[in-house]
């Protein structure tokens, strides 16, 4: 812990993460109290007061043939379309905050699910061996061999448009739970496999053999001997998985099969900005910058965790 606190880069990254999370949590406060608007309703005919003048949110084109409209650019007035509007006349800054909520929520909760399931499955496979190990390892193998994006795309295409109706599980289409479950499940082997390997080698060590020899129960050994030894690796994995998952979410959302309207995430806002790239580039640029900043900070923090808790951990560098 002390080593982590002395790592200046990791502490700076932690600060950045806290700042972004706080800002995104304050999204409703910003939208309702400061800007007085609904960032999810289109505002095509709306007007705002700017420097004492009334200005249309969507302005008629003056260049070229004069057809079509261009959304208002950044006003740099914090209370009012700080970063301008998108093509529906919605406040980009407010949507950026709301989108961050979805992105962070999906990234964090899918990482929790992914790491938890992977830890249980990996540890069980490594510790019990035999049939449990065989089944878990084969499931890991299949998911591992499946291209991550293609698996996520296949699942999303089917599930996003129908929701999940399976036995007693009912999840509405468009719910954020669907991308969370999809992203969590495709990354399980990335965490589960290394954990299984660690437990396999732990089992050969003297202190575990001693515990088995002294007649300790499986539950006792798992809780008192194995868990403390795999916990550092789990901690190291967590921030990296949040970053991976956020990037995956943004890619899926960009492709239209992640977060569904009316919800927004940083990925969907980049997609919104695609058509405005040459007129209002900030619509697409800002959410991307937020992703880079957040994922970068999480990666730096993950590196700091690794140096502090588990310097020998071998982590795959990419998705």
């Amino acid at each position, binding site marked *: 812990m002390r080593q982590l606190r002395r790592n200046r880069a990791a502490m700076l990254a932690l600060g950045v993460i806290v700042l972004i999370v706080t800002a995104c949590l304050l999204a409703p406060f910003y939208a309702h109290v400061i800007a007085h608007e609904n960032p999810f309703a289109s505002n095509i005919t709306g007007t705002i007061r700017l420097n004492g003048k009334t200005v249309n949110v969507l302005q008629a084109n003056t260049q070229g043939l004069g057809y079509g409209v261009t959304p208002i650019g950044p006003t740099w007035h914090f209370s009012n379309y700080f970063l301008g509007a998108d093509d529906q006349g919605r406040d980009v800054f407010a949507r950026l905050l709301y989108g961050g909520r979805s992105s962070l929520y999906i990234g964090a909760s899918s990482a929790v699910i992914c790491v938890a399931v992977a830890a249980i499955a990996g540890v069980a496979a490594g510790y019990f061996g035999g049939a449990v190990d065989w089944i878990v390892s084969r499931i890991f*193998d299949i998911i591992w061999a499946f291209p991550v994006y293609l698996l996520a795309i296949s699942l999303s295409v089917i599930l996003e448009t129908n929701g999940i109706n399976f036995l007693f599980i009912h999840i509405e289409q468009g719910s954020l739970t669907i991308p969370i479950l999809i992203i969590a499940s495709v990354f399980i082997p990335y965490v589960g496999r290394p954990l299984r390997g660690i437990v396999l080698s732990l089992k050969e060590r003297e202190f575990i053999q001693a515990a088995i020899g002294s007649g300790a129960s499986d539950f006792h050994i798992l809780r008192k001997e194995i868990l403390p030894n795999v916990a550092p690796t789990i901690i190291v994995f967590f921030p990296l998985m949040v970053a991976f998952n956020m990037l995956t979410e943004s890619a899926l959302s960009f492709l239209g099969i992640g977060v569904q309207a009316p919800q927004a995430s940083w990925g969907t806002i980049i997609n919104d900005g695609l058509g405005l790239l040459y007129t209002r580039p900030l619509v697409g640029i800002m959410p991307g910058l937020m992703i880079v900043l957040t994922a970068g900070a999480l*990666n730096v923090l993950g590196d700091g965790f690794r140096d502090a808790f588990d310097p020998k951990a071998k982590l795959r560098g*990419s998705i």
Partner: protein
Amino acid sequence: MLRFILRRFASAVVVLFTISVMVYLIFFATPGVDPAARIAGRSASPAVVEQVRIAFGLNRPLPIRYLLMMDHLFIKRDLTSYVNIGDKVVPQILAAAPVTLSLVLGAVVIWLIVGVLGGLVAAANKGKFIDPLIMFLGIAAVSVPAYWLGEVVNLITQNELHSSVFAWLPAPGWVPLTQSPGEWALHLLFPWLTLAALYAGIYARVLRAELVNALNEDYVRTARAKGLSERRILLRHALRCSLISITSLFGLDVGALVGGAALLTEVVFGLPGVGLLTYNALENLDLPVIMGTVMYGAFFIVLASAVVDVVYALLDPRVRIV
């Protein structure tokens, strides 16, 4: 060795079969989803849905349906889209594959050179100013969404600067190599750089970590004791051993990219590869095309991982016993 290769490829076939079953189940046997209605498209009439049901044998038992589908995909190769009626899926994928291959192969060359150089320079200068700088760039590269970077590149090269600094750059698009090699490379230049930037960062990071580990090994101490120069130790001894683990990463990444991970880059730069084909199919929920591209991608990834294991065994004889 031959036995190892045969066993490895036999297991690849098993994995491919499992994946094809899984893809089939996801698309055609998800509980609560009527596959006929999904294949027929959003606004299909009941008659068309019924036609699809018969064409795909959806009224028959599940294993037969699966076999019929594989027959359409791999043997008859006449799987047809119902969204863009009459479009055959397999020829479309085959026509798009060269674009994806061009994109990936060019990017591979760039990222290997940049990534290996970056890792070497960082490891050689461990603790000095340049090491954290390279690692910072590496982290940035890992954290950037590929499609967003592509958009930024487009914004810089195709907007106002296009009339001055980037006047030599054509509009985004695709020119086949056989038509004009120069135009081909020019059109692909920035897509290559964009795709390579991400992977160069990853490889520099991984290689540096491997080199730093290798430099603490006994054989490096022996080399130092023999009085070899640091440069020779780094290049001839440490790098060689570190490249083995890079090889496995590399094979899997190339497989994944050819198999569809280059999708986002293709979309942003408008390159008509397999990725863009998938993307357009996603927009229309054109299931036969999506299923075709997913199977195609899985094929490359499984092939790549088998090839990687064989190469790995050639490089490192200890693996062969397993």
